[in-house]
């Protein structure tokens, strides 16, 4: 924030926000605190009063840019950004001939098999046969994401991307892992602009200038493969370009250090260092995870520095790294749908993810893109 600088003893001091006043500010607007608006520092009550007519505008939420939607499921909810939910289509089915994870048929989508090993921090080392199973599932996951990316464009609803992903998974004898996981209603996650992750595909058409992340996980013959990429829709702003590029670089840099003996908690240090060097922040509430026969399991891989992640990488471990990097604050909020995670200040957030296997000497990127030299779609 431009109103913060370091004082002589290294502690951050704030500047009064009233234009022209540069006095040190130790007071903060309580309405802004309540609305989770960052900043709003003032030197005195008087100064604040003088600026009030302009300042109070910060408390009003940005109006809906596309006002043609009458859909308003949460009339009293204060959105942090301009994105709004659109209606969703009905839940899709998967042919019973395709092998399904245990939660697929649970009324609440509860993953009992994951719950059984919850808390146990010992990380599985996969056998050669299991590694092959993972290779296949991850290759198919990449193919399914490819299909989804092909249709993402201006005017295309995220629901359509989901439909394509759903069909592509079925075609490859895969169950789309997100479907009914803890009750999730769709087959992939589509996260637009300020949505950090877990966006639910709906009827909103993608707009020129959007960034959109498509997160695909498939379950094939008892193994899950998980990956995601953020795409540019039409012409995006330069800050969006920089954010997406930096996020991708964060993932690449962290993959580079993966090898036996490296502590899982080191991943976060590396990611945070690179994100901060570009002036961006690291989302802390969501982390990478172990993945194999279970969708989410040990280890937990936070993306921020100074974390207490347990464990050291060993050959045969399979897990994801999936940094979420934000333009403004690292803080997140959740929509009342209990899924959609958004930035607390409504600014952009981008993400990239791959499923990795630790080898004897390094890493195998199981969900690696095989064509175009493995470059991310936004560079195509």
């Amino acid at each position: 924030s431009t109103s913060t600088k370091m004082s002589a003893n290294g502690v951050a001091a704030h500047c009064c926000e009233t234009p022209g006043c540069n006095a040190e500010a130790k007071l903060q607007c309580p309405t802004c605190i309540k609305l989770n608006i960052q900043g709003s520092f003032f030197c005195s009550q008087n100064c604040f009063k003088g600026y009030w007519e302009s300042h109070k505008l910060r408390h009003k939420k940005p109006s809906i840019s596309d006002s043609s939607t009458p859909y308003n499921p949460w009339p009293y909810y204060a959105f942090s950004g301009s994105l709004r939910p659109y209606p969703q289509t009905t839940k899709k089915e998967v042919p019973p001939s395709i092998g399904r994870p245990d939660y697929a048929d649970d009324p609440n989508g509860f993953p009992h098999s994951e719950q059984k090993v919850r808390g146990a921090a010992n990380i599985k080392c996969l056998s050669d046969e299991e590694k092959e199973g993972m290779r296949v599932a991850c290759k198919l996951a990449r193919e399914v994401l490819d299909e989804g990316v092909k249709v993402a464009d201006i005017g295309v609803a995220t629901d359509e991307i989901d439909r394509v992903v759903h069909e592509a998974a079925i075609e490859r004898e895969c169950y789309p892992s997100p479907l009914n996981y803890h009750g999730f209603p769709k087959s992939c996650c589509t996260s637009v602009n300020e949505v950090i992750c877990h966006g639910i595909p709906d009827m909103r058409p993608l707009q020129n200038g959007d960034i959109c992340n498509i997160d695909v996980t498939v379950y094939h013959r008892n193994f899950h493969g998980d990956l995601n990429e953020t795409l540019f829709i039409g012409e995006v702003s330069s800050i969006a370009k920089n954010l997406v590029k930096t996020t991708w670089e964060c993932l690449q840099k962290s993959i580079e250090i993966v090898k036996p003996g490296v502590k899982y908690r080191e991943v976060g240090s590396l990611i945070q260092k690179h994100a901060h060097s570009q002036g961006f922040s690291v989302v802390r509430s969501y982390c990478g995870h172990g993945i194999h026969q279970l969708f989410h399991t040990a280890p937990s891989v936070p993306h921020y520095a100074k974390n207490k992640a347990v464990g050291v990488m060993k050959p045969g471990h399979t897990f994801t790294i999936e940094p979420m990097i934000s333009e403004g604050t690292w803080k997140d909020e959740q929509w009342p749908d209990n899924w959609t995670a958004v930035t607390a200040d409504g600014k952009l957030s981008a993400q990239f993810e791959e499923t990795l296997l630790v080898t004897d000497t390094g890493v195998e990127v199981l969900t690696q893109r095989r064509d175009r030299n493995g470059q991310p779609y936004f560079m195509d």
Partner: protein
Amino acid sequence: MGDEDDIPMLVGEDDEDETIPELVKVEDKPRVPLTILTGYLGAGKTTLLNYILKEQHNKKIAVILNEFGEGSSMEKSLSIGHEGDLFEEWLELRNGCLCCSVKDKGVKAIENLMRKRGKFDYILLETTGLADPGPIASIFWMDRQLGSDLYLDGIITVLDAKYAEKNLNEKKPEGVVNEAVKQVALADLLIINKTDLVDETQLKAVTDLVSTINGSAHMVYTQRCRIDLNKLLDLHAYDKFDNDLFERSLSTRFFDGASHLDQRVQTVTVEVEGSMSPSSMDYFIDVLLWDRSLTNSAGEPVNIYRMKGIVSMIAESQRFMLQVVQQLYELEPIGYWEIDSPRTCKFVLIGENLEQEKIDDLLRTCVTLSSEFS
């Protein structure tokens, strides 16, 4: 909304004081301490809670019963005591993305409630009688970076003086944890209650047994859980190192009566001159907590429940505090070494199959004496 246009009074972190306050980042809001209260059914947890709520009427205290079970329940009740009144609130346990979420849904529910209803002064989480407090502590001992409104203050275990020995000595099948032992091992404060129901010999026996398991907890004797409340709250067990407690546990050794006990769980303290390097610390942690490759003389693996220490790191003028619970650890700077004081590394460990000499040997392979690197 009509009141949106009323100019609010600004809030400052130190409105009334005339003296210049310590510079604090404006985003740093005081965090709320959460204490885990455990102990067998009937030991006196409920009596203690009622006593706290009744006595501390100028503080706003939240009490959560029976922690957060698994499964998909959507709500959990919570009682709040304030100014002599007790009223009920509801925690919304939002399901949904539990998968890759770093914060437990119980934590989020408490934070959301505080956001809506204002902060509590204290939160007391009472576990079920047979709970293992280890996993619960892990949930609430969050990374500082998460900026949570809560922090884990400590674990209080209530014991029934009359039945504690029996419960602690109960033989469990191989591989099954004796919860009573775990509850004692992880306690930062042990309340030995119902002392009026036992004689002096029995009380001494219980004390000895409990001290062998956990030589580094504060211990208080009560009747009907009447206790000085200052002893209960603000334990700071996970963010401070109590040197007095450490010195006391150093001098606590085996008691005569304790030799008949088949106690796999004990307290061991070690202190060695020298400093550790980041890689030797990594190794120490890996061996003890993650790889669990250290064994006792019988070849049984060491299993650490809790560990605390003060460590000297090579080329660092700051002292470092190590805090461990189960497999989680944190190494944080805490003050400075005095210029001429000798550099040492000292730890108190509580867990299974610990042997003094083995830990000592391990530590010695990890430290470098000052003379070797200056």
